[in-house]
């Protein structure tokens, strides 16, 4: 494992101006749009089968974006005292998320951690007020060698 500071901020800013939408399913370059949106700092860590772009926001929310060797964001995870901006993080998959949450919530009475596990889309959230954690990933795009439990 090695840690390097993200170094393409200026280029990415030029390519993806403020409010550009990222990230799940998008190219690695979209991580920068999320960083700008969160006013955070980013560090990149290399895991065995993928890289982790870790964005730390000033309000203590931590977002991890998991990027395949092909340069595709195949998962995002987060934790912190607040929910991250899901539309920003999920990009093209935001509508999928909305529909899945709506479908699940209409099926029961009560309060519990979110758990959506379909063949091509996994969403899991847990925690409580002031301590949220969650992840969304695309199982069909998880690169060989990556373990799903690491994607959080």
């Amino acid at each position, binding site marked *: 494992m090695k840690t390097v500071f993200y170094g393409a901020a200026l280029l990415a800013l030029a390519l993806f101006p403020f409010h550009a939408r990222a990230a799940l399913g998008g190219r690695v370059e979209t991580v920068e749009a999320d960083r700008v949106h969160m*006013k955070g700092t980013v560090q990149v860590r290399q895991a065995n089968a993928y890289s982790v772009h870790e964005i730390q926001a*000033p*309000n*203590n*929310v931590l977002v*991890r974006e998991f990027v395949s060797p092909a340069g595709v964001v195949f998962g995002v*995870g987060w*934790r912190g*005292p*607040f*929910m991250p*901006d*899901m*539309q920003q993080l*999920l990009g093209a998959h*935001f509508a999928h*998320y*909305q529909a899945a*949450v*709506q479908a*699940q*919530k*209409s*099926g*029961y*009475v*009560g*309060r*519990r*951690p*979110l*758990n959506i*596990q379909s063949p091509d889309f*996994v*969403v*899991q*959230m*847990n*925690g*409580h*007020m*002031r*301590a*949220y*954690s*969650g992840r969304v990933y695309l199982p069909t795009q998880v690169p060989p060698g990556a*373990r*799903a*439990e*690491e*994607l*959080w």
Partner: protein
Amino acid sequence: MVRRVLFGGGVVSVMAGALLLAACGGGSSGSNNTSPINNVQPISVSGGPVPGQIYPDGAFTSVTICEPGTSTCQTVGGILVDTGSIGLRVLASAIPGLNLPQLSGAGTGLFSCVSFVDGSFLWGSVAQADVKMADEVASGGSVQVIQNPTGFQIPTACSNGGVNIDNQVALGANGILGVGPEPVDCGFACDPSSGTTPPNVYFTCAPNGNCQLAQVPFAQQVINPVVLFPVDNNGVIVEMQSLGGTAATDSGSLVFGIGTQSNNTLPNAATVFTLDDFDNFTTNFNQQALNASFIDSGSNGLFFPDDSIPQCAGNSIAPGFFCPASIQNLSAQNVGVNGRNNTVNFSVDNAVNLFQSNPSDAAFPTLGGPNGSGICSNQNSGACSFDWGLPFFYGRKLFSSIDGQPQPTGLPAAPWWAY
């Protein structure tokens, strides 16, 4: 009296008496009360207030809400007792007789947004109210009045792709009483002194629907009513009767204060579990240290990661709960940040069978479900949370101390849980 408070770059008028957060220096504690008052609020597991709908493992109480400083009050039943959130949130439709003053200023109103981990959210105005339970009175604190805005849309920063549960059927309750281990729902990150962009918790909205993220000082944030009580303000006890098995109902008490009266003393035999910065402790389960675990009366089951237990079918009457072929007798160990620990034996049964065999029951001690999947890996990543929901409360007396509030001599600084 009108107070002017700066937030979000604007001037806000607050109709209220002196709002002094006990966490910021006021408050009283200790066992020196000269005239004890009734500090016991009954709670019940009764299926909730929605006709024809059973809310399994939900603990409900009633709260009297008043226009500040007046005797114009309304008592609202069907309020969910929730140690996993902070502050009173009530449906506007449940308090039709009240006109609670909304925090507002410069042509904008102040609104609150709360996100839940099931993907639901609540939007509503921030209003001042006196909140009464048992003989305790919380005067002039902020509450959330749940109501869709008229004339504009809820900002996407609040809805965030989630489901609006702004009505009794969707909420399963008339409101939520958040009595978790913090004094307010947001804290420093929303206070102007943080100097950061506010999170998606408070918004100011002009009548034309122009909403902005807002900073709100501690004293105006939606508040745990307990910290505003003149006495018995340092924590709560949630105590539920034990159950031999599934039951129509269960009863219990929400007791205010810890070590402030003869009825809320922490027993010597109790274990105190101090909490981390996220108000979590560790639960050792299946050879894993689940370090984001917590106790939450507002979760209607025991939710933990165990891929070996089958889940009920999505089209069953118990989607998302566990459905083992036979009852599972399990064990876990809770460990505080202070290292104090306690072993918990618990059971999880087949939720479809439970619901089918007991169609009119509301109390299920063996109701459980998944909380993430896979393992809890290193780097605090993965499925690392055991959510001890309401079944954990049956037959226990759970003490929850509130961050910043003075605790009895000999006990650690809050926040902590003890049982």
